[in-house]
């Protein structure tokens, strides 16, 4: 019995505790990203934004949540009920399970697996299923068109994301996320890999269906794209999933290019700040960039989006991969 408690129960409770420690702050962060987005875009467009509910409108996300919870759930006729309700759950849970491998500080992670970067790539490539399932199960033209666009879009940009990841892991010499962060101790990778940083960030925008690549839900032509038929809680799950995905992908950008939890300069004062604060600050910076892009750029046309993915990003990232490998080999810097 003692063996059972020490061998199974205590580790299980410890893992469960760690998961709660990750998920609860994440959910609060998701709620406040939606608020931040409205306030920041409001400021950029010389409006005020939500400022009525609570102090400075700080309770607005909760008011929205309560509103969505109390609305009626509508199931369209001719839809496929199981797939219809599975789709938002898939979207939301995929955005959550990626955090299983993300290290937020030295030694702060749920699981430290050797193929962490591949796991992240796998999870982000599954994101398309939530959208495709929603589009198909809704039995609606707009939703279906949105889903088809999104399937093509996400598959296209995944290719360049993969190549960028390979360039980074060639330089770091490991697939383990903590080791990738530690390899950036001298120089964050966004300096040597700056073109890849830009390509990765733009691909992340396309992968999370954010502006200017939000064609799957382009309201001017497709009503709300794949979300057209969703209401109440199922809509809320899609909405939360989109913002959780943004935070997750910002975390990936932070780990691959912005040095994870490392302080900007190796100075005692900056090193005294806990790593998780740096990590949160860097994620907030990436999120701010995403929101800024939304307020600045017009939406891409569909053929332009495909052209950018296949004819610009793919060759560029492939050439950069060859250059990186050649540079590492000829200067004898290949990490062993």
């Amino acid at each position: 019995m003692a063996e059972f408690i020490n061998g199974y129960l205590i580790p299980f409770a410890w893992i469960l505790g760690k998961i709660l420690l990750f998920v609860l702050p994440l959910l609060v962060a998701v709620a406040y990203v939606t608020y931040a987005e409205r306030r920041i875009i409001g400021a950029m467009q010389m409006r005020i934004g939500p400022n009525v509910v609570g102090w400075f409108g700080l309770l607005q996300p909760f008011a929205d949540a309560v509103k969505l919870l109390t609305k009626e759930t509508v199931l369209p006729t001719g839809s496929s009920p199981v797939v219809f309700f599975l789709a938002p759950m898939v979207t939301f849970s995929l955005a959550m399970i990626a955090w299983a491998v993300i290290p937020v500080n030295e030694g702060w992670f749920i699981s430290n697996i050797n193929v962490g970067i591949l796991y992240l790539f796998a999870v982000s490539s599954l994101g398309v299923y939530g959208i495709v399932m929603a589009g198909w199960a809704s039995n609606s033209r707009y939703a279906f068109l949105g889903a088809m666009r999104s399937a093509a879009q996400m598959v296209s940009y995944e290719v360049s994301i993969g190549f960028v990841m390979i360039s980074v892991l060639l330089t770091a010499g490991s697939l383990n996320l903590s080791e990738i962060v530690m390899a950036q101790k001298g120089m964050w990778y966004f300096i040597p890999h700056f073109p890849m940083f830009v390509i990765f960030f733009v691909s992340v925008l396309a992968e999370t269906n954010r502006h200017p690549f939000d064609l799957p839900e382009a309201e001017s032509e497709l009503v709300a794209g794949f979300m057209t038929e969703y209401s109440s809680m199922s809509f809320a799950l899609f909405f939360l999933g989109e913002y959780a995905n943004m935070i997750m992908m910002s975390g990936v950008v932070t780990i691959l290019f912005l040095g994870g939890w490392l302080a900007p300069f190796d100075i005692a004062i900056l090193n005294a700040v806990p790593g998780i604060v740096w990590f949160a600050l860097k994620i907030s910076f990436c999120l701010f960039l995403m929101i800024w892009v939304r307020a600045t750029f017009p939406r891409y046309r569909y053929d332009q989006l495909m052209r950018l993915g296949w004819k610009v990003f793919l060759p560029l990232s492939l050439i950069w991969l060859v250059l990186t490998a050649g540079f590492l080999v000829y200067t004898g810097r290949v990490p062993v």
Partner: protein
Amino acid sequence: MIIASLAFYLFSFIAVVSALNVIFQRNPVHSVLWLILTFFNAAGLFLLLGAEFLAMILVVVYVGAVAVLFLFVVMMLDINVAMIREGFMKYLPVGAFIGIVLLVELALVFGGWAMSPEAQALRLAPTPDLTQIPNTEALGRIMYTQYVYVFQAAGLVLLVAMIGSIVLTMRRRVGVRKQDISTQVNRRAEDTVEVVKAEVGKGIA
């Protein structure tokens, strides 16, 4: 070890059930979704074997790319289940015949199964100690040294397949107004806009 064997039975049970569901579902889209669940559980089994790289690659390649294309194609087919059922009795003899032929072939293949001595020797070849180097590195070392030509040949086969599919689907259509970025960028105001002083009451001819 109890947990590991429990996980094994869970993964393999779900894998078998979902694989059966792939065949027995009437709706082809549901079949593809069950197929995806099968892939996932196969990846879980790989993980239990300690083959983490293969597990992740299985998810990335099969679930993330191949199954998306399946779903994409199957979603667009307008399949009427009733019409499929209509021809069931008509096609049954042909289908049964093909099935029996396949079954006999499989029986013949497995009946005459023998392990070649070279394969036996390969199995005995020492694999690197997995506690010392990670799985991915062990795979990379063997693939890029001993089997580098086979690896390259596989790459060439894929390249040929890719070029083939592009050639097959490429068609040049006339009268398509494609966007040419360089001409747009190189356009100057003086090439296209002319400022004219128009006289009152006359306009420009």
